[in-house]
């Protein structure tokens, strides 16, 4: 009889060669776990190379999942369980493990060749060394997988490809999960190659059965369903959440969605998701470069569509010129920046928040633009939707800041009903007897959108400075100064259309002020500190330009402001500049997310 141990939260890392199907295994386990009712948060960590050198530490692909019977806000700190497909996966992740954690090792991945590749030169059995610190489960996955498939006609190579399913089956047994959702996934994925589908299902079952058969040896782990707010949930990955938000905004505004993009990590999946949904009238344009992606979107917006473009790192730099044009034309345009480590090519698959200053200021001339930041995968939809609403209703380009941690991370999402989404009303010009004034503004400083095809509204726009009202080219000194201020006022005025921030403390010692993907870690840290009696509160900004109107007032209620960021200090400059407060920074620039423990320590240091 196997015994069971109950846990409130478990963090598990799947790790192996980047060709081992680690991401898929992790993703499927996340889905099943979320369906079971656990709250989850995931973080894939993979090398930039598609097939990095096999067996080496640099080639290790990882997938981290934190799930629990209580609310989960981050992909977790140190892990409880490691699935290591080879020696390199062990070596890379050892420092990521709690004491006495469970290591599930694929024996074939610890042969002489793999040990050498992983750099275990003088060690005969690194697993044995770990027995003093961790519980080790050795499984000969390769042999057992081949065994399970011995009756099939598949080649050896094809059989070995299903190894990840054996591991997944075993993990399902370990956590007492239902395999049917993954079976359905396999059927859908391989519906054109039934042989492969059958093989994968066989191996999945074999892995589960192996757990049952050997259960005397291992203890199963029980993580009960979480008590989440009532409602209907699904799993959502950040990039998909953005894509859905864009489609929903197009549908709600009655505009056609035109998406111009050039593939770049980690923004590519937005293009792929949108390309799948052509039956929503979505037009995707895979451009020759980042510049064409952005300018084609501007062309589409000029034609009356909702023009959108996305990129990351150096790709955003290339779009700066186009953003300037959209600011001058005062047309809707949404730019999604899925941030990655920089500068230059930097760390394509690692996460960072170092593009905030670029988002706010990275264009020539006085070129203000609203900036919104996503804080988690489940927040991606709402932020993308709101960014589109602002772009359309205020006739301006808007930048959405996401990052690699959000883009590839997943969590349960209480998705909205289409009917409950806010309305979006484009400010379309209508034919009239009076001469059309392209740059005439309403009380919010917003000009009308006159799209080609409407008689009597023929007009010319361009990147040269505009004369107020007529939009004709003007080099007049007073006009230029006036136009610069009008464009700024239009953006500043958006503060009247965004919610004020809420803060649950009337007065306090420390305010932890963040933006973007540090949300979960700050939330965990602040909640724990509160339980410890610390006078601390969290404010997390979605709107980085313009800032919420009451931010200064909220900041003034605290003795100290701590600003954790995955950069060398960017929001901190803005807060110091705007509110003249001696804010303190907590900065991590390692391509990895912040951990709650790090934030807690920083807060305590300020006390």
């Amino acid at each position, binding site marked *: 009889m196997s015994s069971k141990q109950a846990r409130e939260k478990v963090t598990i890392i799947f790790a192996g060669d980047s060709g081992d199907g680690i991401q898929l295994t992790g993703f499927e386990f996340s*889905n099943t776990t979320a*369906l079971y*009712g656990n709250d989850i948060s995931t973080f894939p960590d993979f090398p930039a190379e598609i097939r990095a050198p096999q067996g080496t530490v640099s080639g290790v692909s990882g997938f981290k999942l934190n799930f629990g019977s209580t609310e989960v806000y981050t992909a977790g700190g140190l892990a409880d369980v490691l699935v290591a497909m080879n020696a390199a996966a062990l070596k890379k992740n050892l420092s990521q493990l709690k004491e006495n954690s469970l290591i599930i090792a694929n024996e074939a991945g610890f042969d002489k060749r793999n040990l050498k590749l992983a750099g275990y030169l003088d060690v005969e059995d690194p697993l044995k060394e770990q027995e003093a610190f961790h519980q080790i489960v050795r499984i000969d996955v390769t042999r057992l997988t081949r065994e399970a498939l011995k009756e099939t006609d598949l080649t050896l190579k094809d059989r070995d490809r299903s190894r990840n399913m054996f591991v997944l089956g075993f993990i399902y047994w370990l956590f007492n999960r239902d395999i049917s*959702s993954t079976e359905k996934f396999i059927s859908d994925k391989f519906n054109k190659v039934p042989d492969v589908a059958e093989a994968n299902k066989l191996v999945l079952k074999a892995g589960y059965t192996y757990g049952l058969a050997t259960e005397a040896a291992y203890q199963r782990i029980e993580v009960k369903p979480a008590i989440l*707010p*009532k*409602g*209907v*949930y*699904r*799993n959502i990955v950040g990039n998909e959440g953005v894509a*859905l938000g864009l*489609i*929903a905004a197009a*549908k709600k505004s009655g505009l*056609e969605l*035109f998406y*111009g993009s050039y593939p770049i990590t980690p923004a590519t999946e937005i293009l792929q998701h949108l390309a799948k*949904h*052509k*039956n*929503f*009238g*979505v*037009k995707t*344009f895979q451009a*020759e470069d980042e*510049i*064409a992606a952005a*300018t*084609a*979107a*501007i*062309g*589409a917006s*000029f*034609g*009356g*569509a909702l*023009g959108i473009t996305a990129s990351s790192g150096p790709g955003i730099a290339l779009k700066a010129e*186009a953003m300037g*044009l959209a600011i001058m*034309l005062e047309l809707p345009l949404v730019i999604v920046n899925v941030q990655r480590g920089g500068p230059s090519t930097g760390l394509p698959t690692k996460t960072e928040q170092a593009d905030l200053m670029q988002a706010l200021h990275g264009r020539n001339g006085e070129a203000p633009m609203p900036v919104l930041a996503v804080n988690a995968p489940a927040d991606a939809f709402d932020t993308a939707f709101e960014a589109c609403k602002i772009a359309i209703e205020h006739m301006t380009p808007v930048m959405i800041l996401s990052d690699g941690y959000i883009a590839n991370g997943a969590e349960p999402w209480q*998705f*909205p009903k*289409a009917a409950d989404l806010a309305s979006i009303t484009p400010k379309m010009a209508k034919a009239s007897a009076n001469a059309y004034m392209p740059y005439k503004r309403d009380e919010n400083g917003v000009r009308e959108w006159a799209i*080609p*095809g409407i*008689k*009597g*509204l*023929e*007009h*010319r*726009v*361009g*990147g*040269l400075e505009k004369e107020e009202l007529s939009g*004709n*080219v003007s080099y007049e000194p007073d006009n230029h100064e006036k136009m610069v201020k009008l464009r700024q006022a239009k953006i500043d005025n958006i503060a009247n259309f965004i919610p004020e921030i809420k803060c649950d403390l009337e007065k306090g010692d420390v305010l932890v002020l963040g933006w973007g993907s540090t949300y979960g870690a700050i939330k965990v840290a602040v909640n724990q500190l509160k339980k410890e009696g610390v006078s601390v509160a969290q404010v997390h900004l979605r709107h980085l330009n313009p800032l919420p109107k009451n931010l200064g007032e909220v900041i003034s209620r605290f003795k100290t402001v701590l600003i954790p960021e995955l950069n060398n200090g960017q929001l901190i400059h803005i807060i110091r500049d705007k509110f003249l407060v001696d804010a303190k920074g907590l900065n991590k620039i390692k391509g990895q997310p912040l951990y709650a423990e790090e934030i807690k320590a920083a807060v305590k240091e300020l006390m």
Partner: protein
Amino acid sequence: MTQNVEYTAKDFSTDQDVRWCPGCGDYSILKQVQTIMPELGLAREEIVFVSGIGCSSRFPYYMNTYGMHSIHGRATAIATGLKAARPELSVWIISGDGDSMSIGGNHLIHMLRRNPNVNLLLFNNEIYGLTKGQYSPTSEFGKMTKSSPMGSIDHPFNPLALVLGSDATFVARTMDRDPKHLREILLRANQHKGSSFVEIYQNCNVFNDGAFEVFSDKKSKALETIFLENGLPLVFGENNNKGIALDGLKPIVVDVDQFGKDALWIHDESDLTKANLLARMFDGAINGVDFPRPFGIFYATQRPCYEDLMADQIALAIETKGAGDLDTLLQGRNSWEIK
């Protein structure tokens, strides 16, 4: 797309002062474009002019249609997005040799391979005019300019060879000094469904005066130019006494009377091999022989347009999957309820 109003060229001019140098070749092109507009059978509001940056790119301000004077080199990309979003519009791109051949070279070749139904007028004056006289990607080797006081060491682009290499579906050359020919080519470009590329030799009388004079000067024109007409033999010279024939794939200049008209090269707009040979009748001799510069339509073929292919895929997706339902999309493959 039809309109009932009878337009005149004047209906297409705006109240903006035209700001090109007096004597600039752009005036002639503007006049011809405004003149053909009423003949297109389109309402003004259905026409859009998109330009990049450079002297020629001021063009949209002078056309009473919808228009955008955009950023350097990007007009082709902007027009592609516009046309994809609004396939029914008549989209005209105005560009120069710097705009299209240099900073916008990438967008140009990619637009041409995608083949949206637009018309691109390349005002080629072989010089940077707006920045006051530096060599351009079409300036001849050795050209002395402010930025090449010892002569340009850049080998120039042969624009038509470049666009043929990008699989353009309509390739033509004309010039500002021949309004009749210019007009004819503009009308044909408009009729062509697909991306029409029209190179227009345009004189910059301030920084590169006379660059194309040999092609319009009465004394030299007959020997230096050859006007292509579909189905007709390639003849040039005084009284068309000279002709071009093909010896295999080698063009030769012959005396028409001696060689016989029937044996000459007959122009065929649909022949890509011959179009490539014509495009190579450019600077420098071929096999030691100087050829006249061809004008007219080098090549015209049909290929599906980008915006139509895009619309077809959307129609097919709706037909097979049904029109998208937002609630179904948001719910995804697996959802669960917490009660």
